[in-house]
């Protein structure tokens, strides 16, 4: 009896430890993605290449361990690779300088010495590693284009004043971009992610849409269910909780 209790106790303990580790990992990934996005902005990356960089990062760590690979190096290589995938070329020199400033805001840029070249070499080697790990499947379909379509449809359902009073488009896009802080961006269909971002934005401002035989979201995206929307929405909201814990 007692042995049984103790085994189940240790299982629970192990489970607890694992979920505690998971939380720590998610926090780490959150911070690294914030790093990707911050440096991406400074490098003048457009939204889609930035989204690709985050997606590459998340995909990589879906099958690789944080204990083995240095996440910030993977992030830098993901930025570099995303530039190629999305045809917005970025120079390694610029990436290194911007990242260096991120970690050491008070220091001068790195000299072009041995250390610089080592770092550069690590980035390009790690780029090859990411390509291998992802089996060269590096082009993603992002939700951005779907969000644009959905926004156009929803705007036509609202009157002009209701639309201009509330920043729905801005909020939905912001939610969408924020989703790249976590793995939610690689776990769901781009259409579903776009729709849920819009759904969340509309809820936030309490905007009611006319309802016919179908809900508005059934009209714009045929294959999503209410339950799916709710799952994605809760994953998105968890990310905002995470933000409070991480910063």
């Amino acid at each position, binding site marked *: 009896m007692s042995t049984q209790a103790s085994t189940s106790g240790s299982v629970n303990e192990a489970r607890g430890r694992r979920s505690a580790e998971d939380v720590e990992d998610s926090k780490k990934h959150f911070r690294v993605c914030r790093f990707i996005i911050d440096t991406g902005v400074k490098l003048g990356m457009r939204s889609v290449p930035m989204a690709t960089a985050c997606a590459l990062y998340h995909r990589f760590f879906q099958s690789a361990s944080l204990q083995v690979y240095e996440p910030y190096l993977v992030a830098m290589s993901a930025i570099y690779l995303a530039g190629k*995938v999305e045809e917005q070329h970025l120079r390694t020199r610029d990436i290194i300088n911007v990242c260096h400033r991120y970690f050491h805001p008070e220091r001068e840029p790195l000299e072009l010495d041995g250390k610089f070249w080592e770092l550069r070499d690590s980035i*390009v080697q790690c*780029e090859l590693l990411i*390509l*291998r790990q992802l089996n*060269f499947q590096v082009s993603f379909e992002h939700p951005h284009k779907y969000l644009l379509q959905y926004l156009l449809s929803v705007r036509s359902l609202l009157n002009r004043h209701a639309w201009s009073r509330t920043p729905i488009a801005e909020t939905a896009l912001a939610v969408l971009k924020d989703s790249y802080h976590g793995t939610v961006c690689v776990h769901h269909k781009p259409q579903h992610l776009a729709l849920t971002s819009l759904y969340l934005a509309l809820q936030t401002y309490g905007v009611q849409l006319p309802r016919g035989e179908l809900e508005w979201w059934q009209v714009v995206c045929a294959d999503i269910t209410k339950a799916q929307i709710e799952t994605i929405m809760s994953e998105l909201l968890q990310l905002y909780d995470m933000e409070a814990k991480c910063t």
Partner: protein
Amino acid sequence: MDHDFKTRLAAERERVEDLFEYEGCKVGRGTYGHVYKAKRKDGKDEKEYALKQIEGTGISMSACREIALLRELKHPNVITLQKVFLSHSDRKVWLLFDYAEHDLWHIIKFHRASKANKKPMQLPRGMVKSLLYQILDGIHYLHANWVLHRDLVKWAVYGFLCLCVSADMGFARLFNSPLKPLADLDPVVVTFWYRAPELLLGARHYTKAIDIWAIGCIFAELLTSEPIFHCRQEDIKTSNPFHHDQLDRIFSVMGFPADKDWEDIRKMPEYPTLQKDFRRTTYANSSLIKYMEKHKVKPDSKVFLLLQKLLTMDPTKRITSEQALQDPYFLEDPLPTSDVFAGCQIPYPKREFLSEDEPEEKTEKVTMSYRHGLGSYKGPDLQKFACTKNMHTQKSCI
């Protein structure tokens, strides 16, 4: 990542030189890199492979996108990427494909040359049908998927001109490096000969209909052994889409389009120039029927009817690849076969190996001027081009 881990990984990694024998078997060279004909060293299979070593080191933007695209394509008439080799030490990238002994350019040029040398050799009609069916099938796959991938647009537009036929299977496969700028391809591929009339009149966007026109041109050429809209051209690099001589050639074969046949022609950006430079009456006696009759293709045959649907002037009325695949032509005997060479001898020469220090591309470019006039030029050089020197064939192919 620690050093030991890295060395361990490097030791486990399969290296191209350990797995494949390719030394001295170079079959193509260009700005994209080098192509070798290769065989497995371990003898697991006796198949021939094509190994492409990408020029330069590391993953370039175009290499990255090309591999990503190839990873997603899966169709019997579109080339499949078998494997990628990445060497971390010298950062060279190798791509492994199935080997194709012949390609469409190869075949077309062979027949052009035989005709120019007064020893015309017709393509067997069954082979033409099988080739056309496979081109259409491959292009249909690309057309159906290109909404998902913007690189596919570039791929599809000229991909079928670089079609490969592997000798063992006789399968035709679409093949092209999707990201090469058009000017980087074989200049013959970029000629105006295969350009749809709407492009010559200033249409700015590639559409599926543009590919269909080009397939129509190829089809006609397979039937007659000469380029249907052959036209002399000097200024290939011109940025102006309007090309007087090329349009003149199209109208001399097809006749000038009647207003009711192509209503939107008036909306084309170059329509005013067209009105200024051309007169309908000049082409009153031309028609595709007459042109093909000269080449012994009867106007009531199924071959002709399909050709006519592919070579429709108005892009909105042109047949789609899906409709074309359903055409009665393909239901009539002989039925298309999956081996395009089924039941016939292959007269085309095999690819030759290049020496490691063959002259650069540049010297080849000089001789290009001959090749533009291929249809009309009848000298001994032609034979040489068509049969022994197939560098460009391979260039566009792999």
